[in-house]
């Protein structure tokens, strides 16, 4: 199998407000009600997407086309709209179901809201396999570009923590969202390039899944990374790669995309980012300057 072309990263954005705090209001909106009518997952996602678009500077022609039919969005999340689900369900039991909340009880809502806010009429998809969702979303966005379904893709990931989530899954999920703007191969990259991501499922053995995903990504690219980034559990699986390692402070889908968006600011030329889910998923993606 020949390796697909590298996909350029044109812009990046990330928001991580403290629990309960509203995200930074995107300057372009100028309409506070637009954010306040959304649930927190959508509002965070929209702010990150806005930052990525603004960071990209001059945007490719697909942005300027009427109706933006060649621009799309992929959203990824481990836990999606569970916090909104909880608010809806508690409200349903106490005073009856809220139609406003119900429309945000789908994990794909951020993809819809981002598409509406920017008039994106190309592909809109949501990937929710688990804590490797950001890598799955990147893969889906890259497919949309490489298969000619779009010329410009926003890839966004977000999580919203809650006491219930902490009870069910343990601590570590902090509120945050991040987004990357990806272009067609050949478009000048402002923030480096991404190789084809890889996700692997290994029942009961996420460490083996991460190792396998990392090896596949590196074999396809024919590269040895200078640095591997990931949360502690995922990093433990790839210690044998013979390069330096750096732990991500948080293991959420948003932190994976946020890390990818910051790599151009550093000095490395090739960085492998890995993610894992204790239910058996491992994923990896290679960033190249």
């Amino acid at each position, binding site marked *: 199998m020949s390796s697909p072309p590298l996909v350029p990263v044109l812009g990046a954005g990330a928001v991580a407000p403290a629990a309960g705090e509203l995200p930074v209001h995107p300057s372009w909106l100028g309409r506070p009600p637009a954010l306040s009518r959304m649930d927190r997952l959508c509002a965070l996602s929209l702010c990150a997407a806005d930052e990525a678009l603004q960071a990209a500077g001059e945007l490719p022609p697909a942005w300027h086309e009427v109706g933006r039919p060649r621009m*799309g969005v992929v959203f990824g999340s481990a836990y999606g709209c569970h916090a909104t689900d909880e608010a809806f*369900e508690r409200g349903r039991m106490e005073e009856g*179901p809220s139609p406003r909340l119900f429309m945000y009880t789908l994990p794909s809502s951020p*993809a*819809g809201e981002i*598409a509406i806010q920017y008039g*994106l009429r190309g592909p809109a998809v949501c990937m*929710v396999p688990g804590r490797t969702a950001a890598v799955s979303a990147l893969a889906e966005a890259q497919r949309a570009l490489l298969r000619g379904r779009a010329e410009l893709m926003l890839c966004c990931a977000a999580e919203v923590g809650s006491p219930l989530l902490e009870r069910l899954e343990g601590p570590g999920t902090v509120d945050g969202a991040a987004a990357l703007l990806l272009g067609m191969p050949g478009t000048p990259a402002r923030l480096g390039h991404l190789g084809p991501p890889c996700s692997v499922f290994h029942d009961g053995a996420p460490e083996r899944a991460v190792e396998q995903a990392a090896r596949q990504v590196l074999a396809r690219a024919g590269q040895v990374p200078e640095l591997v980034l990931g949360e502690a559990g995922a990093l433990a699986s790839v210690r044998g790669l013979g390069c330096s390692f750096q732990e991500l402070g948080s293991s959420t889908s948003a932190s994976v995309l946020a890390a990818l968006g910051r790599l151009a600011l550093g000095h490395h030329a090739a960085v492998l980012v890995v993610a894992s889910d204790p239910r058996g998923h491992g994923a990896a993606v290679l960033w190249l300057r």
Partner: protein
Amino acid sequence: MNQEPRVAVTGLGVLCAGGADEDAFFRLLCSGTTALRSEPARSPPGLGPIALVPQGGDESELGERASWLALQAALQALGPTGPPPLPPERLGVVVGTTSGGKALWLEALACGGPARGDWTYGAPARAVAQRVGAGVVEVVSVACASGNAALGTALDLIREGTCDAVLAGGVDVLTDFVLSGFAALRAHARGPCRPFDRDRDGLSLGEGAAFLLLEAAPLARARGRRVRAWLDGYGVACDATHMTGPDREGGGAARAMAAALAEAGASPEEVDFVSLHGTGTRYNDLMEARGLASALGPRAATVPVNSIKGAIGHTLGAAAALEAVMAVRALEAQLVPPTAGLQVQDPEIPLRVVHEVPLRTRLETVLSTASGFGGLNAAVLLRRGDR
């Protein structure tokens, strides 16, 4: 892209209120009758008919209903020979769902304790992958178009060379959470839903799972599998207009259908039958008529179309997967099932809606489209397989 394999459908599996296997399912659809029933015990009070799958004897073994439904349908799709003899990294599972294992999450929320098992969106996909030994697992959630989006991702995984075979499908179960949410939106029909009818008044919900076994053509041929259909095209597009209401002109649906046609290299004239989303809500059905006219041009007025939601309800994340199974069976039988519930066609919907009895006709190419909240749309194009 020339070396990409064509993708064959070699197995089907279904579990819904309309039947516990593909034969029973297609028989019910062709009968023109409905599996929708009143369920007075379900909340909220005054709910219209819904389509529930009876509890299975072995359901409690898995502990999570959506996973159980998905597993039954997936194993059917594999057939008695089981999964293709592939290493795990060449075998995929892609599941479309809006809720996944949410029923367990609701239980944990209500009781205040830990969840009894995997409550996340990926629970059904992992249950299937664990059983069949798949090493590539993706979970796609594109509202009520999730089933088609799962087929699209699976198609890509095979074409790009990541997998040789993928079990792809959709699943969702009906919880009081979902039923009361649609009630809050006043979306439920009073009686069984009536897609494309002049007097349609909303949707009827259902639950179920459907899976298709997709194989790269060389693998299917080497295994001596009959190609039941070819999955040749996929399109996905967003309305970008409203979170719960569709683009009144069906723009997103039209773009998804046009993209599926283009990817398959098919012209509108080649399309012999269109499986529409057909929820029975006023705006969805009107939007689809306009979207189809935009995608197919003059062919839209003459091509046979149907909706199966009057027979089995709107099964949300499973809906498009069930419709894909119906489309494959229609191609094999050269028979379009009628639209249950349709009595007097809406004059504002100038389509050739098959109703009352099945339509026997020549079928080589079928287009299937689905749409959902957020203005998300996805379509697939299937062609007739071996005869």
